[in-house]
């Protein structure tokens, strides 16, 4: 599969004029292996050739790199819109004029709270400089954006900040969660709790009717909470719903470090995620290499763990922001706890821990399955199986709902357990066979489907239907036709009822 890079983030320097308590990159002085101007200009050309439409220049503090404006101009000359994220410390009129000349699109200033909070996190005096910079940008008609990294130090200041930003003419405000990486890894007591994600979403949603400012939830905030989706849609000025479609790292976006290292995302920067270096390999070659960025390009739901592996949204979401998973749990394929849906499901699981009435649970679990509330059915039946691991009915239903949720491994295990208890369970043989097919073992799966079909009676012809369909999907149409005959012999009228299937068989 070919991927088109559209956007990216480039940390043009690790030098910084601040020492923020939550800095993800632990920036201080420029590092000796920083790209030279010539090298960096070449990178600009390569970015243009790759076809990116936008790139954000970041750091460290990008404005401390003396040639930042040259890079911005070169990018613009290559039809790539440069945006800048800055701490605002040296954002003065001269800098802004240079930015305008260079073709910078948006200036996003990092602001992490009201004066006392922001200066504590960043640097004494920086809040006032930012306010001055915002006033300047307002006067010059430059689009001002603000990015706020949320911790428990500033979560209660959102309303006050909102009023200030509107007054200052800020048009775009992105909120993102502070994650335990870099300096913040040593300050985990500042982190938000997963439950506070809903508070942030509620706040953002409360602003959606305000046309003066667009408040964005960053990629680490979500997922599929209707308020969050509505907020994204409004912020993107879109006609149809804008929702999280999975991480774009390595698919539509990339990261470039100060020394030319290329990765999917500048936040995910451990050595194992560096795909190449632009000093040795052209950017396009790194990007087009089908073996690169595989941690995301080849990610499937069943590689994740915890609730993300079982989630009804998992196929699309793929665990939300991978940096959240990596920094919170040390494992990029772990569960994403900073997810509104995850929090809601976990609350339900907690409620179920106090319920031991198996009959009641089975009643509710089966009803949910019948109503199509698959996720709820799954967690209820899981509770039943914790209380009674050999409950056959629960195993059957659990196998079914897991399959429908796309949790084929879980379904396989449930069906396996059923077969251990009752090897000739027609339903379990069918389910096991279907799961094997989904997990890439079609031949083996078909054998189980055949076994199921051979044992079934004319009152339950589903095994034949599933077997025939599976054979067709695996290019074994002749066999499918034979099975049709067998099915017809067992249950006259089968072909008539399944005409569409018969048509697919050829």
């Amino acid at each position, binding site marked *: 599969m070919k991927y088109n890079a559209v956007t990216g983030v480039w940390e043009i320097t690790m030098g910084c004029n601040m020492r923020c308590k939550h800095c993800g990159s632990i920036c201080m002085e420029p590092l000796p292996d920083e790209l030279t101007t010539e090298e960096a200009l070449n990178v600009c050309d390569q970015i243009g050739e790759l076809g990116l439409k936008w790139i954000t220049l970041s750091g460290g503090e990008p404005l401390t790199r003396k040639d930042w404006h040259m890079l911005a101009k070169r990018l613009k000359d290559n039809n790539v819109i440069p945006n800048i994220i800055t701490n605002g410390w040296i954002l003065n009129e001269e800098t802004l004029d240079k930015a305008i000349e260079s073709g910078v699109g948006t200036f996003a200033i990092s602001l992490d709270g009201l004066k006392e909070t922001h200066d504590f996190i960043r640097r004494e005096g920086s809040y006032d400089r930012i306010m001055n910079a915002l006033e300047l940008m307002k006067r010059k008609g430059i689009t001002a954006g603000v990015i706020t990294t949320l911790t428990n130090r500033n979560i209660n200041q959102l309303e006050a900040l909102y009023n200030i930003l509107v007054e200052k003419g800020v048009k775009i405000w992105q909120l993102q969660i502070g994650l335990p990486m870099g300096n913040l890894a040593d300050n985990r007591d500042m982190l938000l709790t997963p439950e506070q994600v809903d508070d942030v979403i509620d706040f953002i949603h409360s602003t959606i009717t305000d046309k003066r400012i667009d408040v964005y939830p960053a990629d680490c905030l979500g997922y599929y909470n209707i308020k969050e989706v509505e907020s994204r849609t409004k912020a993107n000025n879109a006609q149809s719903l804008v929702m999280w479609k999975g991480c774009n790292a390595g698919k539509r976006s990339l990261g470039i470090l100060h020394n030319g290292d290329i990765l999917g995302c500048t936040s995910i920067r451990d050595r194992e995620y560096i795909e190449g270096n632009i000093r040795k390999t052209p950017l396009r070659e790194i990007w087009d290499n089908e073996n690169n960025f595989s941690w995301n390009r080849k990610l499937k739901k069943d590689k994740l763990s915890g609730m993300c592996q079982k989630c009804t949204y998992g196929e699309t979401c793929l665990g939300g922001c991978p940096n959240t998973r990596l920094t919170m749990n040390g494992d990029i394929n772990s569960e994403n706890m900073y997810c509104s849906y995850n929090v809601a499901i976990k609350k339900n699981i907690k409620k179920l821990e106090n319920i031991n009435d198996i009959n009641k649970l089975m009643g509710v679990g089966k009803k*949910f399955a019948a109503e199509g509330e698959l996720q*709820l059915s799954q967690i209820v039946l899981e509770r039943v199986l914790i209380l009674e691991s050999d409950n056959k009915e629960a195993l059957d239903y659990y196998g079914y709902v897991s399959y429908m949720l796309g949790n084929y491994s879980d379904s396989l295990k449930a069906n396996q357990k059923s077969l251990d208890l009752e090897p000739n369970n027609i339903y379990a043989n069918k389910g096991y066979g279907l799961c094997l097919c989904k997990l890439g073992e079609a031949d083996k799966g078909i054998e189980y489907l055949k076994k199921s079909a051979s044992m079934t009676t004319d009152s339950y012809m589903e095994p034949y239907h599933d077997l025939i369909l599976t054979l067709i999907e695996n290019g074994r149409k002749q066999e499918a036709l034979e099975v049709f005959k067998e099915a017809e012999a067992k249950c006259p009228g089968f072909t008539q009822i399944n005409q569409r299937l018969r048509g697919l068989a050829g």
Partner: protein
Amino acid sequence: MKEFNSFEEKVAVKKGEVFDVVLESQVVSTGYAWALSSMPNCLNLLEVAYVSTSSSVAGAKVNQVYRFAAVAEAEACLEFSLCRAWEPLNAVQKKVYHVNVSEQESSLEDDLKFSISKDKFLPTDVVNPKVTREQSPVIPYGVPIGVVEGNGQCILKYGVPQGLAKNNENCQLKYGIPASIVEDENNCVVEYGIPLGKSNSDEECVLKYGAPLATNLLYGVPCAKEDAVYPLYKAADSNDIVVVYGVPTLKYGIADATIANASNTDSYCYTPHEFEENENNCVVKYGVPTGIAKDDNDCILKYGAPVLKDNK
């Protein structure tokens, strides 16, 4: 239904529950009856009835039945006064009930559903749209219902397209109906939504699917521009029928207007229905045209709503 008599002092009910307060009186013989003297907002009075007791003796007691509905969670007082209708200020007895209306206990099912209800989270099929078939990946026209990206191209499979890839060379429809236009020096490329702008450039406005308003319309529903040309004249030759903006004028078809001409009364403003194919001419094949190529050598109507299929 719950019933509360005069010996009880408390009324404990659930919100939504209907209950009776039954009070005995000798209204027939004494004239004294129970009047409702104070009713809290958490209750609605539904009915008042007099029910005889079993005794047939003159002056026998009567049951006064007050039927209430509990409508709100609250703790309050319900008061009755025993008095005569003609002496309302002279109550000889009062009866007060302490009322407690509590919420209905929710079921486990409701409880679990509440936290992930459909007004809180998107339905799964909105987030994970199912593509039912995966053959024939590139479907240029039609009403697709799902989109798969891949192979460097916007592969529209099934569904209503909702956007356009920003690709100068290969204007490919990606997601849905284009809604906005990206001003680009070289190409007017429509991205995501109904285009509202136009290219200032003489270069090709590449819009493939949608309702463009711009110049250089290739496919779609052309809309008039101020200098749109509506040729009403007979073409000198078959290569001279070029419609730039507005309603396409085609060579063949059913006439909408007839131009009187000394030498020729042929009609030239047509709504074509079916035509012979001719690669050098403005050719419409089977249908109502919805767009026309700018190029007079390639004035071939491609996308329309086929009406007839027979070649005549």
